[in-house]
Structure formats: C-alpha cells, structure tokens
C-alpha cells in the first residue's frame, strides 16, 4: 500500500529530490545524450560502433576485476570470521585497523606501492641484499591486481564482518549440537548465512575494480590500460566527450548486468547489507 505524501513530507524530501536530479539523473542523461551524438550535436551511432576497438581493454578490465574480487573474497572471508571470534573490544580495534588505510589518500597509497615494487624499490633492495637479485614486479598485471586488492579489500571485509557479527550464536551451537563439526558448520551454516555479505562485498569490490584508472596507470606502467584509463584519456587528453560517454555507458550497463547476475545467485529475503 502506498501512502500519499503530505505537503510536509514533500517539503522535507525536496532537497534530496533536487540533489538526485542535479547530480544523478542529469549526469546520466548527459552520458546517454553524448553517447548518441556527434560533437556538433547530431544523432549518430558511430560512438557505439567504434567501441569494437576497445574490446581487448574491456575484457582485460573485467578479467582483472574478477581476479581482484575473487582474491579479496578469499582474503577477506577468514579475516572477517576471525574478527568476529574475538572480544568486543578487539573487534572494534580490528575493524578500525581495517579502515585505517582509507584515511590516507587513495593516490598516495597507490603511489607508495610504486616505491615498494619498483626495481630499485624497497622489496628489491632487500632481495638484492640477501642475494635473491632483482625480481621485476612493477608494471606487471600482478602489480595492477595487487593495487586493486590492496585498495578495495576493506570493502569486502566490512560487509562480511557486519553480516557475520550478527549471526545468531545459538544457531551455530545448534548445528554443533546436531553433530556438525567445524567444517560442516562452515559449509552448511556460516557460509550460506553470510551470503548477503558476500554479495555486497563482491559488488563493492568488483565495481570500483572494473572502472578504476589510476592504479593501472601507476602500477601497470601504461602497458595494461583498463577501460577507466581509456575513458579518462578520451575526456582529458583527446577531448572526445562523445566517445568517452559511450564507453562509460557500456561500462555502466556491464556493471549493471554483473550485479543482476550476482543478485540472482545470492539473493535471499534478507537482501544485501549495504
């Protein structure tokens, strides 16, 4: 049943409505508009048909994004679980530690990884000292994915933690009581019940990973440009707003499809946490 909005409600809601129109709906409209027009404003499909030349970049972005998301999940799940097993006090501390890197600027964090991974960087200096020799790390796909995992890991840990910390302890005890060992309880109780957190985490890591641009430039050295880099180039260097917009549009649609797919897989009544 829908409630009719009173005048008061409308007044209170209006700033948010204005905000959404100005900063969400209008930009979306412009993305669509630019995608289907030429620089002089005439309708065209060229921007869309031209996208074929970016297929490799699209695929690479999705591939890197998927890899980074899976690695994040594998790392974050045990971390989140371990956090929930500690006392309330240390839970707070550990959650704060997880978020701590986010207090620093994203660009600075990524830049620091350059200094760490470079051939003359901290790790390689250490390797040479102990006689392993230089291991080339920067400007590899691995470095790019590492950057993604490092930057987006908290977005996986936090929703997982939030779901797991709300799990009813007596449900876990009931499973134990009925003969379930640790493995069974993990498989049959904890993982299924933390699905909403997994779904949120996957989305929150995958979306920024697919569309990131700075990480790939700094840690990939330009050899592994992602779709975000291409969009940035079209807008910042080539001033081709129309092509940039059409790439953005396709990226948005791709992300939307991925999310629908994810939700299909993990949906239950409780929905996602974030």
């Amino acid at each position, binding site marked *: 049943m829908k409630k009719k909005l009173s005048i008061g409600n409308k007044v209170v809601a209006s700033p948010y409505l204005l905000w959404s129109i100005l900063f969400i709906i209008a930009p979306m409209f412009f993305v669509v508009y630019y995608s289907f027009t030429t620089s002089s404003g005439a309708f065209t499909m060229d921007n869309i048909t031209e996208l074929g030349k970016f297929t490799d970049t699209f695929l690479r972005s999705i591939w890197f994004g998927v890899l980074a998301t899976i690695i994040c999940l594998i790392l974050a799940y045990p971390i989140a679980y371990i956090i929930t097993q500690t006392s309330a006090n240390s839970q707070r501390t550990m959650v704060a530690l997880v978020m701590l890197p986010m207090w620093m600027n994203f660009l600075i964090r990524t830049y620091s990884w350059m200094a760490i991974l470079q051939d003359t960087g901290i790790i390689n200096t250490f390797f040479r000292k102990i006689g392993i020799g230089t291991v080339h790390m920067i400007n590899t796909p691995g470095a790019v994915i590492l950057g993604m995992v490092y930057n987006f890991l908290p977005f996986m840990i936090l929703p997982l933690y939030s779901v797991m910390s709300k799990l009813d302890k007596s449900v876990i005890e*009931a499973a134990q*009581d009925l003969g*379930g060992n640790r493995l069974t309880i993990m498989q049959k109780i904890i993982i299924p019940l933390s699905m909403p957190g997994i779904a949120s985490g996957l989305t929150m890591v995958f979306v920024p990973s697919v569309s990131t641009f700075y990480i790939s430039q700094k840690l990939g050295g330009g050899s592994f440009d992602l779709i975000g880099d291409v969009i940035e180039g079209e807008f910042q260097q080539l001033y081709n707003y129309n092509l940039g917009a059409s790439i953005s549009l396709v990226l948005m649609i791709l992300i939307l499809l991925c999310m629908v797919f994810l939700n299909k897989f993990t949906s239950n*009544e409780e929905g996602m946490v974030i």
Partner: protein
Amino acid sequence: MEENIIIDLKNITVKYGDEQVLTDMNLYIRDKEFITLLGPSGCGKTTTLRIIAGFLEPNSGEVIFDNKNINGVPPHKRQVNTIFQRYALFPHLNVYENVAFGLRVKKLPEKQIKAKVVSMLGLVNLKGFGKRNINSLSGGQQQRVAIARALANEPRVLLLDEPLGALDLKLRKDMQVELKSIQQRLGITFIYVTHDQEEALSMSDTIVVMDNGVIQQIGTPQDIYNEPKNAFVADFIGESNILDGIMRKDLYVEFSGHRFKCLDSGFEKDELVDVVVRPEDVDVVAADKGMLRGTVTSVTFKGVHFEIIVDLKGFKWMIQSTDYQAVGTEIGLSIAPDDIQIMKKSIYSGTFGDYSSFSEEFDELSDASEEGEQ
C-alpha cells in the same frame, strides 16, 4: 550407586571472572527420567545444561556420561541434543531440511532420512509442513520443528532450555502435556530448565531447585512442595507463610505465640526454626475457636478461591479459602499438624514468607523483568 544413572556431575564449579556461577555442584540423573532444573534467572540452571551439552567446560569437576568421563568431548560428539531457548532453527533451510540436518551430517541414506523426518514431523503434529519456510511459522510451530530436529538424532538425553518461555499461556499448557507424552513414548531422559514452578511441578519426575549456583533441594514434585528444605524453596515453589518458630520438643512447635502439634522431630530442644504453612492449608474458623486470631486486611477473588491477607500482630498471612471474608472482620485460624512444615534455619531465613509488602502488581512486574533476561 544406583544402576541406571546416565549422567553424573561431580563437584562442578564454574566461574565467569570473579563471579561464581556454580559452586561444587553434585547431581546425578537417572536414565529415562524427566528432571527439571528450577530456579530464578542467574541461578546457574542454564549453565548446568550447557556443561552437559558440552558448550561450556567447568573450571573444575567431572562430567560422567554412561560411566565415562566426557570432560573435553566437543558437543557434536555427545549423545545429547538441545532445544534452545529461542529455538535456533536454521533460517536458510526449510522445515524438512532443518529436521534432516543431523541425519545428513551422519550421512545416512536419503531414504532413511526421509522416513525419519516424516515420522518426526508426525510426532510433533507438523505433517505436511516440510516445504514451509521457517520464518512463515508461528512460535508454537517453530518450537515443534526444534523438537523434531533434536529428536531426529535419537539422543540418549534431550536438554530443554526454557523451551516454552516464548509461548503464550494456553499454548504453553498444551505443549507441556505434549512434551511429557513425547518423553514417555520415546523413553528418553529429559533435562528441562525453567523458572516456572508450575511447569516444573506438573511435568517432572524429579525437580532440582537451584539458587545462586547451589542446589537447594532435589526431590519429587510432592516432596518439594510439601517438605521444602528451606525458606527459599518454600517461597519459590507456590505461596507460603514462613514464620519464625521454636521447636519446644519433638512434635511440638511454637510460633505466633501458640504451641502447635506437628509431625517433625529430630531437632534440638528450643531450636530456632522456620515454619512453613501453605495458604490453602489454613482453615478459617470463628474468632474464638481458632488457634490464632487476626484481622482481614484484604480479599482478592481468584476464581477457584479467595486470597485473603490476615494481619496477626503485624505479621501478614496469606490464606486461600473458598469462603468470602469481609475486610476488617476478626477471624480464627486453625492449622492441622500435618500442614505444618518445619525447616532448619538457613541463610534465607527471614527473607521470605511475610505478605506485608505483598502486591500482585509488584509480582507481575518482577516476573516480566525476569523473562527479558537469559
């Protein structure tokens, strides 16, 4: 020691930090009996249950199951199953899968699982509910699923932690009868935890009254009610008038300024004792014919009887009588020898049994706050 003892707790002590939850507890439980741990919140009854289930290790003491020490054996390897206070059903599984959980863990063949689940759902009157979602069930139905799920594992002992606490009165009464009949039909041991004395009295073979981590009395419901060991038990189970008395000699006790004949003996001469008289055991007679005389200060109609508060030289008695007495009338009280229960003085002496501050509202309030706690 008796032959058919299934669980034996020996010198169990549990501490949470500085707080002593169980103090040197000794309790044995016979096979196939319905035993109830009864006491107010925080008395250690749930802790005792968790020790038997294996969720909690005692700081000291032994847990013996079937003549074997099971200290340190994890819950999933014990032949006991638990019905949790808030059911703890698996929200992501339907009714069928909830009941089948333990059987699947045991990796039984599908056919056997199906037969067992169907028979368990039949046992708890939930035939045809298999496909239903847990969240679509009422509290009573969820409770039944929890029972079926625990019993499907064919435990030797079923532990029930205030299983009916969340149900309304009518449903609770029905489930009491049902649980008792399930216990008798299956012939397994039930260890039942509750703070509801009426529930304990009507269902149990044996009642264990606990307070402050110490067992106060163990006995049959009749024993506990008729011969409470101390003022705590007398007050906790049913209503009681508890008075200070002096044991003049065997079979004679003096209280409220009158010497009564009683059935108790074995006390020192002139030993100070607590005397319990149940409200329903006091006979109201004409003022001049009674052993004691007092003034009625309040009358409440309770349906079956009137609850009458009588002032006897400052001490207020509660009396239950089918005859109405007007407030202000002077009445006589008469008490038969077998209605007087003498108890040794204990730490609880003087804390219970006077109805001066008695108010039903207050009683209900304290009941409500009790339910909120664990």
